[in-house]
């Protein structure tokens, strides 16, 4: 076990999930290497990384499925692998990636089975079924479910036992856009009740707007942690302005922008495009002010989470 300093000790107590110096070594392979992480209660936290970056191993260690080689993990107030972790598990929810539930059971039977194992009241089954919008399919066998319905049933199962921490591995696989929207709305509702959600997804555009903070993993290490905005600032990726102008105004705009930023804009048939450091944001706007209404349109593009991800992960 890694020693815990007094300062980080209080952080660990407040956090729904606290990792200190967590490593998992398979022989020479360091699947996870010295990870420190605090996830406060009620946060929606994203975990992203290439395949093999160590996300799944980290997930499995937090759930107590795989013992850590080194370090300590506290989840939902209990030391993972410790004596009271069994009781804490009643209030953890887990949706594994691509899980296949039991075809021969109905949706409701599936939930009853998991509720029994989790010591959750059987009355919760109907409630969570409604929460994921499967109330009309509860009696049907799972083998008749579509991919999206199966995924929703998997999510419903994770909601049994009023979880304090939810671990969701690629939860929106197979969901249509409306279902994805509903899914995140449900997460927001849970968050309001103080539930902590840890979520992985390969669809970065989907996470970008929906997580409070996220960690980028590569080669078994956490390369960066923070809100999407904080990570953008950390990477110092350029902003991209697209300015629509009549051709006769482009030359003047070009001159003004170059004066203000020292960077020559690219000329497009519809106007100009300028990539500049974030610090020049206001200078660009000020430089365009004299043109007034001659600027037909202005778009400012922040680097996407995908850009940020590749900035850190590669």
């Amino acid at each position, binding site marked *: 076990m890694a020693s815990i300093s007094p300062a980080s000790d209080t952080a660990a107590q407040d956090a729904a999930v606290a990792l200190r110096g967590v490593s998992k070594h398979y022989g020479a392979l360091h699947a996870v290497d010295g990870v420190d992480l605090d996830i406060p209660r009620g946060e929606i936290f994203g975990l992203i990384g290439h395949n093999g970056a160590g996300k799944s191993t980290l997930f499995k260690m937090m759930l107590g*499925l795989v013992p850590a080689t080194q370090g300590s993990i506290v989840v939902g107030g209990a030391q993972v692998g410790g004596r009271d972790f069994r*009781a804490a598990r009643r209030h953890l929810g*887990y949706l594994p990636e691509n899980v296949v539930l039991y075809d021969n059971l109905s949706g409701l039977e599936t939930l009853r089975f998991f509720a*029994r*194992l*989790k010591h959750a009241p059987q009355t919760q089954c109907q409630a969570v079924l409604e929460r994921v919008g499967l109330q009309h399919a509860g009696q049907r066998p799972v083998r008749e479910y579509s991919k999206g319905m199966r995924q929703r049933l998997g999510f419903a*199962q994770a909601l049994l036992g009023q979880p304090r921490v939810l671990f969701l591995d690629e939860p929106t696989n197979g969901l249509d856009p409306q279902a994805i929207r509903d899914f995140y709305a449900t997460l927001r509702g849970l968050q309001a009740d103080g539930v902590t959600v840890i979520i992985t997804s390969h669809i970065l555009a989907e996470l970008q707007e929906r997580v409070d903070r996220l960690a980028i993993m590569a080669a078994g290490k956490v390369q960066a942690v923070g809100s999407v905005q904080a990570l953008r600032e950390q990477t110092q990726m350029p902003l991209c302005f697209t300015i629509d102008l009549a051709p006769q105004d482009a030359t003047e705009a070009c001159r003004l922008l170059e004066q203000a930023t020292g960077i020559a804009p690219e000329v497009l048939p519809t106007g100009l495009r300028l990539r500049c450091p974030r610090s020049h944001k206001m200078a660009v706007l000020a430089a365009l002010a004299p043109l007034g209404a001659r600027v037909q349109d202005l778009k400012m593009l922040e680097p996407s989470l995908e850009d940020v991800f590749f900035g850190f992960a590669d």
Partner: protein
Amino acid sequence: MELTQIFTIAAKEFRDRMRNRWVLAVALVFTVFSLVIAYFGGAQQGAVGFRSIEFTIASLVSLVIYLIPLIALLLGFDAIVGERERGSLDLLLSLPITRLELLLGKYLGLAAALALSTLAGFGMVAVLLSRQMSWASMYHYFGFMLSSVLLGLAFLSLAVLLSVLARDRTRASGLAIATWFFFVLVFDLLLLGVLVGSGGRFGGESFALLLLLNPADVFRILNVFSLEDVRTLYGLATVVPPAMGSPLKMGGAMLVWIAVPLALAHWRFKP
């Protein structure tokens, strides 16, 4: 250890086998085969019809020794590896349940299904033949049924061990067939080969103990030695020492065959 967790898993496994009519199908197979054997088992000797319970049991033993290990191995080979392959093993183990509880639940549920189909299948025959059977015959037949259940449970335990060791279902099914081949077909031939090849030098009591290394042989000894007629029929009396004829000892050997593979399975069980 929480018994409710074991029971929840076991109840699901059992109900699955009831619902997909596995129990019914296997019971029917046992009933039909036993009746055919009871009535036509003596056909080679030129007689058709029920003869005696001893001959019926002797014929049934030969059938059961092939059939039950195969059925038990096929029933249990994907118990754990099946969950692993569909991704639900991690989910189960993330719940407040230990690996031992999961393993025991799986085993007990499948064991209940196998025991029920065995008892129902052969029990039906006992009911149909009850007029022709004396109390003593009934007693022997009951012993045969019980030992058949134990044989099934021993091979089911081996199957669960395979399902823990195998990396995927395909490998597990291959291992199950190989296990059946080894214990049911190859093992006795090997022993015989050693016996003949050594010119009888390795014979005697210690040699007979080697039979304990195969649950199918334990089953044979259990049934054959309880019946005077059959013992001479099989010519085993000269090979197997009388001490091994004790049903209690052989029953104990069977229990060891149930417990040890399960213990090994628990030891090797990793998520």
